[in-house]
C-alpha cells in the first residue's frame, strides 16, 4: 500500500512538473506582447517593463526562475489585474468555487444515486423512464445552455431566485443546480445498472427468502454493494465540475476561479492563466489519486497493484 502510494505520488509530481514546463514553453510561444498597451509603449519603455518582469533574461534562466518560484508558492505577478500577486489573486477566489463545487458534487451524486435506485427498483415504469429521460438530458444539454436557461426562466422571468452574483446562500442555489445536472445524470445511469445487477444476485434472493422486507432488501443489502463501483465515477465527475465551473461561474457572475480564468483568457493575462492551469491540473491529479485510494479501502476485493509486496 505504502509503496504503491509513494509510486503514485512520484508519478503525480512528474506529471505536474511536465505540465508546468509545458505551460511555460507554450506561453513563450504565444506571439505578441503580454502588456496590454504594448503598441503605445516606446522601445525604452518596453525594455524597462521587460526588465521589471524578468522577461529580458534568456529563456532557460526565466524557466529556472519560474520553477523555483512555483516551489516557493509564488506564481508570479498578474500583468493585467493591477499587478496583484497571482497566488493572492487565485486564493481570494478559491472560496466561492470550492463551495459551489462541493455543493454540486454532494447534491448531484446523492440525487443521482436516488434517481438511479428508484429507476432500478421500479424497472420499466414511468419512474424508470422519467429518470432515464433526466439522465439523457443531463448528459446532453451543455452546462452553459442549461445555466442560461435556468437564469432566464427561474430568476429573470419568475423572479424566484437571485439572477447573479455571490452575496449569500440563496445566490448559490441556481448555479449549484446548473452544475450538478451532469453528476446527476451520470450517477443515475451508473447506479441504475449496478442496482439492477445486484438485485439479481443470489444473496438478494437469499435475503428475500429469509423474509426481509423489500425496503430492507433494497437499502440494507443491495444499495451498499451497488454503491461501491459508483466511487469510480466520482473522479471524472469532479473533473467535469471544474470544466463546468468555468462557464457556470461566468453565467452567474460568481467571483470564483473559473470566472477569473475566463477573464484572464479574454485579456491574455498569461501569469494568471498559467497559475490557474497549474492549480486545476494539480487538483485533477490529486482527486484521481484520492478516488483510487478510496476505492481500495472501501472494496477489499480490489488490491492496488503492488500492494502485496
Amino acid at each position: 500500500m505504502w509503496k504503491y502510494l509513494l509510486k503514485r505520488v512520484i508519478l503525480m509530481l512528474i506529471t505536474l512538473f511536465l505540465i508546468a514546463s509545458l505551460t511555460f514553453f507554450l506561453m513563450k510561444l504565444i506571439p505578441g506582447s503580454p502588456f496590454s498597451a504594448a503598441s503605445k509603449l516606446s522601445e525604452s519603455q518596453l525594455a524597462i517593463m521587460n526588465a521589471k518582469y524578468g522577461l529580458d533574461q534568456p529563456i532557460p534562466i526565466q524557466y529556472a526562475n519560474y520553477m523555483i518560484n512555483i516551489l516557493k508558492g509564488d506564481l508570479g505577478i498578474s500583468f493585467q489585474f493591477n499587478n496583484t500577486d497571482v497566488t493572492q489573486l487565485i486564493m481570494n477566489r478559491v472560496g466561492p468555487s470550492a463551495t459551489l463545487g462541493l455543493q454540486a458534487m454532494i447534491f448531484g451524486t446523492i440525487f443521482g444515486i436516488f434517481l438511479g435506485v428508484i429507476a432500478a427498483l421500479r424497472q420499466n415504469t414511468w419512474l424508470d423512464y422519467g429518470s432515464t429521460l433526466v439522465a439523457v438530458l443531463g448528459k446532453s444539454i451543455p452546462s452553459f445552455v442549461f445555466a442560461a436557461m435556468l437564469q432566464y426562466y427561474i430568476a429573470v422571468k419568475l423572479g424566484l431566485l437571485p439572477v447573479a452574483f455571490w452575496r449569500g446562500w440563496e445566490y448559490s442555489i441556481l448555479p449549484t443546480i446548473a452544475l450538478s445536472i451532469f453528476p446527476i445524470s451520470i450517477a443515475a445511469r451508473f447506479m441504475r445498472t449496478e442496482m439492477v445487477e445486484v438485485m439479481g444476485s443470489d444473496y438478494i434472493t437469499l435475503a428475500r427468502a429469509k423474509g426481509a422486507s423489500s425496503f430492507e432488501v433494497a437499502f440494507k443489502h443491495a444499495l451498499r454493494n451497488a454503491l461501491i463501483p459508483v466511487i469510480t465515477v466520482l473522479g471524472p465527475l469532479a473533473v467535469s465540475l471544474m470544466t463546468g465551473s468555468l462557464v457556470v461561474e461566468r453565467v452567474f457572475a460568481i467571483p470564483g476561479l473559473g470566472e477569473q480564468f475566463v477573464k484572464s483568457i479574454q485579456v491574455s493575462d498569461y501569469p494568471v492563466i498559467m497559475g490557474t492551469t497549474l492549480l486545476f491540473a494539480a487538483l485533477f491529479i490529486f482527486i484521481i489519486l484520492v478516488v483510487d485510494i478510496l476505492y481500495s479501502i472501501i472494496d477489499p476485493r480490489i488490491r492496488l497493484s503492488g500492494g502485496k509486496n
Partner: protein
Amino acid sequence: MVNHPEKRFPKEMFEPAQIDQSLIEKIEKPSLSFWQDAWLRVRKNKAAIVSLVLLILLIFMALVGPFLSGYDGEVQRAEHSNLPPRIAALENISWLPFDGTLTSRNGDTLTPYEDKRIEEYYWFGTDGLGRDLFTRLWEGVQISLLIAFLATALDMIVGVSYGAISGYFGGRVDSAMQRVIEILNGIPNLVIVILLILVLEPGILSITLALAITGWTTMARVVRGQVLKMKNQEFALASKTLGATDLRIIFRHLLPNMVGVIIINTMFTIPNAIFFEAFLSFIGLGLQPPDASLGTLIEEGFKVMLLYPYQLLFPSIVISLLMITFNLLADGLRDAFDPKMRD
C-alpha cells in the same frame, strides 16, 4: 372440470422423431451480414431511430438551411438590427414565438416590425448587426459539425493506428506506448485544449487539432484491447502462416473485426467534440468573427439574453437537439453492435 389429456396430447406427438442426417446442417433462416444484423437490432430501439431521423433532418438543414430564407448571413443592415422572429403563416398564433413581438423587461409588448415599417419576415429574427439569424444558425451548425467530424476522423485515424500497433507488437513497444498514454491522461484535457488554442490562435483548424490531440487516447485503448484479444486467434495465426505481413494482418484481418467497437467509440466522440467547441467559444476561445459556430452564436445570444432572448433560444435548442440525438443514437448503436458493452 374434466381434463381430456388424450385430446390435448394426441398419440402422434410421442412418436420418435426421424432424424435425417442430410438436413442437420440445413440453415433455416437467411444468413445475415454483420450490418444487416446490427440494423435489425438498431431498428428495435425507438429512441435511436427517432434520433437518427432527427439527426438526418438537422444535417440536411445545416446543408440547405442557409439558402432557404433568402438572406445572406453576412450582410449587415443596421436598420434591421435585433428584430424578433416572425414567420408569415405562424405570426397570428400567440403562443408561438414567431409573431414578431418582443416583451420588454417591464412587461410592455414591443412591435419593432410595425414601428420600423419593415415588410420582411426574419424567421428566427436578426442579431445586433441586422444579420439574418436563420441563415447564421444553419451556417453555424455546418461549422460545428465540420469541426466535430474532422476532429473525430483525426481521433479515429490516430487512435486506431496507435492502439493497433501498440497491441499487435506488444512487449517493449507496447509498454512504452502505454506509458505515453498514461502521462497524457494524467493531464486534464481542458488544460491542453486551452493552452493549444492560446498558442495556435482560435480557428477551425486549431480547434479541430486541439480536440483531436486530447481525444484519441480512449480510442487507442479500446482498439489495443481488441487487438490483444484477437491477435492470437486462429484466423490471425492462419494469415500469418500464409505469409501475410504484420500491417496486412492488422488492417485487413484485425480491424474489420472491430468495426463495431470503433463505430461506437466514434459516435460518442462526435457529441463530445460539438460540446467542447461550443464550450471553447463560450469562454472566449472560439472562432473569430465573421465565422460563426453554434458556440459563438450562443455566446453572442447570452450577452443580450435579457433584451432579446430569442437570440439565445434557437442556437441553444439546436445544440441540445444535436447532443441528445447523437447520444441516443450512440447508445442504440452500442446496444446493437455489442450487447456486452451495455452499461
